[in-house]
């Protein structure tokens, strides 16, 4: 059987080229690897290498021909035992068939199968806290630690790694006591080498463990963001569901106090934009614990954003054996009827303060804590909007391309008919965080700004 030699595509975008030169002539013996011809594209001159063996029969496109379309038969190759001189050019025209790379669903019958985006589960909610359950006032710091410790007791595959997590007991004392209980095998101090240890943690998850990778702060995770996004988030998809990556990246996020621009930034919107990641940013202690446990149990990679300024605050945690919260579900922190304030992380506290103040002025605000930033609980936001018809987002972070922007888009796309006023965002100022105390205060979101925005959407100012 004679083999057709076709004009090759030598780059992903090449459609045609010039057959610059034949390096083999009719009748020449060819072995795999021989350079048969030189082909010029708009970018470069490339060599056309033989894959098959045989004798070069007819040359169908003379050298120097320009504009030869990819796929055109340019020569015939006679196989073993064939007479090269007897080979005829293919009878077919030089018309090029569709190539599969063009995304034309080659080889598959046209199907009615719809592209369905995954729907949010409606059958999950926070666990019932039985009547009579006692509560213990717990700091967010301790709640996070308790969540980790419980999961480490439950599952041997869970371990913690990061800078100062073991002997130092955690730079912010979140891992306090874990080394004593679980030993150095499961509580691992790393060198200051975020890219490397984020990769090691991610690889360990691929290898079947359940790593919790602590970043001393998420500012330093930027050195490691490649592993969070390219290695962890995309693995399951790229492998067709074969390779999971159940890792938790956690640490404080957002502005701390007087540490200036490089140490003060909310990365929530960055991670929340990435398909394949779960992004959690709790506010109070019960949520911190319940969502930490859920994050560790999740089969998906989780970015768990804490807040340094909230670590020391104390909130009630129910005294329950296994308090696990659903991921992807917002929480109504305060019911109201006049306006909705959507917030997450530290801004929830500000929103609750604002709601108290507004109540004194006769405005009954509902406060929603998103808790999870990805997948975002659209339904909860829209349900509240349908009730109050007014919505303000409070976010400790920059306004541009923020979670606030996303909430506004959701309200515009799916809640437009319910809106009685423009959705408004209250964020930090759009500047790197300044050091000077007065400037820092000016730059950061605060309660009065939320109060003002709420009054504005209620047309009360």
């Amino acid at each position, binding site marked *: 059987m004679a083999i057709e030699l076709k004009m090759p595509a030598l780059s992903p975008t090449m459609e045609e080229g010039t057959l610059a030169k034949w390096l083999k002539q009719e009748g020449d013996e060819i072995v795999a690897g021989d350079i048969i011809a030189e082909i010029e594209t708009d970018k470069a001159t490339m*060599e056309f290498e033989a894959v098959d063996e045989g004798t070069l029969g007819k040359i169908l496109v003379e050298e120097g021909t320009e504009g030869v379309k990819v796929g055109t038969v340019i020569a015939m190759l006679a196989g073993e035992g064939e007479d090269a001189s007897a080979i005829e050019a293919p009878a077919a025209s030089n018309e090029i068939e569709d190539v599969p790379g063009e995304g034309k669903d080659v080889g598959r019958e046209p199907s009615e199968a719809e592209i369905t985006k995954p729907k949010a589960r409606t059958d999950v909610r926070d666990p019932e806290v039985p009547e009579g359950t006692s509560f213990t006032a717990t700091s967010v710091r301790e709640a996070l630690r308790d969540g980790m410790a419980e999961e480490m007791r439950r599952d041997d595959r869970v371990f913690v790694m990061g800078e100062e997590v073991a002997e130092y007991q955690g730079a912010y004392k979140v891992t306090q006591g874990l080394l004593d209980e679980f030993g150095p095998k499961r509580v691992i101090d790393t*060198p200051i080498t975020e*890219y490397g240890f*984020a990769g*090691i943690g991610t690889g360990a998850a691929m290898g079947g463990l359940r790593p919790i990778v602590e970043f001393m702060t998420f500012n330093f995770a930027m050195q490691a963001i490649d592993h969070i996004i390219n290695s962890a988030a995309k*693995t399951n998809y790229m*492998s*067709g569901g074969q390779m999971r990556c159940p890792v938790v990246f956690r640490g404080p996020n957002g502005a701390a106090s007087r540490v200036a621009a490089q140490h003060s930034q909310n990365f929530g919107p960055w991670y929340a934009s990435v398909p394949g990641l*779960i992004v959690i940013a709790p506010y109070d202690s019960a949520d911190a614990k319940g969502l930490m446990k859920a994050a560790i149990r999740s089969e*998906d990679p989780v970015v768990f954003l804490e807040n340094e300024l909230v670590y020391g605050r104390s909130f009630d945690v129910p005294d329950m054996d296994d308090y696990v919260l659903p991921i992807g579900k917002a929480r109504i922190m305060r019911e109201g009827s006049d306006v909705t304030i959507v917030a997450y992380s530290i801004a929830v506290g500000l929103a609750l303060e604002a709601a108290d103040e507004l109540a004194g002025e006769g405005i009954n605000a509902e406060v929603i804590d998103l808790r999870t930033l990805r997948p975002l609980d659209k339904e909860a936001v829209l349900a509240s909007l349908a009730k109050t018809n007014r919505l303000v987002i409070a976010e400790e972070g920059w306004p541009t391309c923020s979670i606030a922007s996303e909430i506004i888009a959701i309200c515009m796309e799916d809640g437009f008919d319910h809106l009685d006023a423009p959705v408004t965002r209250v964020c930090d100022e759009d500047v790197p965080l300044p050091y000077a105390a007065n400037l820092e205060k000016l730059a950061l979101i605060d309660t009065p700004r939320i109060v003002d925005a709420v009054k504005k959407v209620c047309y009360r100012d």
Partner: protein
Amino acid sequence: MAKAPKGKKTKTKSPAEDQDFVLHSLQEALEKKRRFDASEEQLLHFYEQMLLIRRFEERAGQLYGLGLIGGFCHLYIGQEAVAVGLQSALTEGLDSVITGYRDHGHMLAYGIDPKVIMAELTGREAGISKGKGGSMHMFSTEHKFYGGHGIVGAQVSLGGGLALAHQYNDDGGLCLAYFGDGAANQGQVYETMNMAALWKLPIVFVVENNQYAMGTAVGRSSAETEFYRRGTAFRIPGMDVNGMDVLEVRQAAEIAFAHVREGKGPVLMECNTYRYRGHSMSDPAKYRTREEVQDVREHKDPIEGLKKLLLEQGKSEDDLKAIDKDIRKIVSEAADFAENSPEPEPGELYTDVLVEEY
């Protein structure tokens, strides 16, 4: 051009006097005996595997030329002895392997069905990643092959994590983490070496030095081109291996794996090899001469080298031709399969983004 293996270093101290002895001990073991004593069966197996990779990659290049494979496609032609020599020494089902984007050869060396690899290259439903990964993103957790990673150097720290999992589970396994001479300049490689040595992780770092980081010759990008020395700062012993000789690679693997399995921590192995084709399919490879490529092909080719040995040992040309014929058949079937399998259902667009439902 592939470097000749280094000459024997002059030793001035006895191991007992030389506290750095461990840094050289593996190389010395290799220099004492450079080639693995393979049985006839093993030799034939190496030959078949290398030939399968060669023919598969040639065909992949051809399918790329026909527009059946898109995007980036990095061929392994010329480097076959590295994957085959090393992976033949692994304990199947125990040890793990991870590599970069030039990954077809490593998968084939595992005995993974060429059909599902080729079908991934053509972006079909039957591909090993269901057509969602492509040439650079292929995985087989069944074989403990963890990819297939497109970010230069990322696989090295991920490999550190796989090694940590072996150590954590105390399963006796090791991780083989391949990277190129280009990736060898990435910072995370050294971050990982530091931790691997600190924690004595069971990992073999393998630099596949094919002499060019895309279009940049090693001498133009690397202050230290003897990559096996680069672990010295972390007290990781290095090995300098002729990556064009499958028996030398295998012998080096035996030495390195034994060291790692004894709990002595990582090894850094440099396999000097050569890539015949461009960096990817769209690379015209103008940064080197045709003569340079031809010289390696004629004098150092790993498949031709082994073929010569097989002929010397009494195999006939016809025997080897028959193998070649079988391999061509396998590759043709893989190509047909890859060409005729359907593309993924549109409904697959949103599957596998997350494992769980929330």
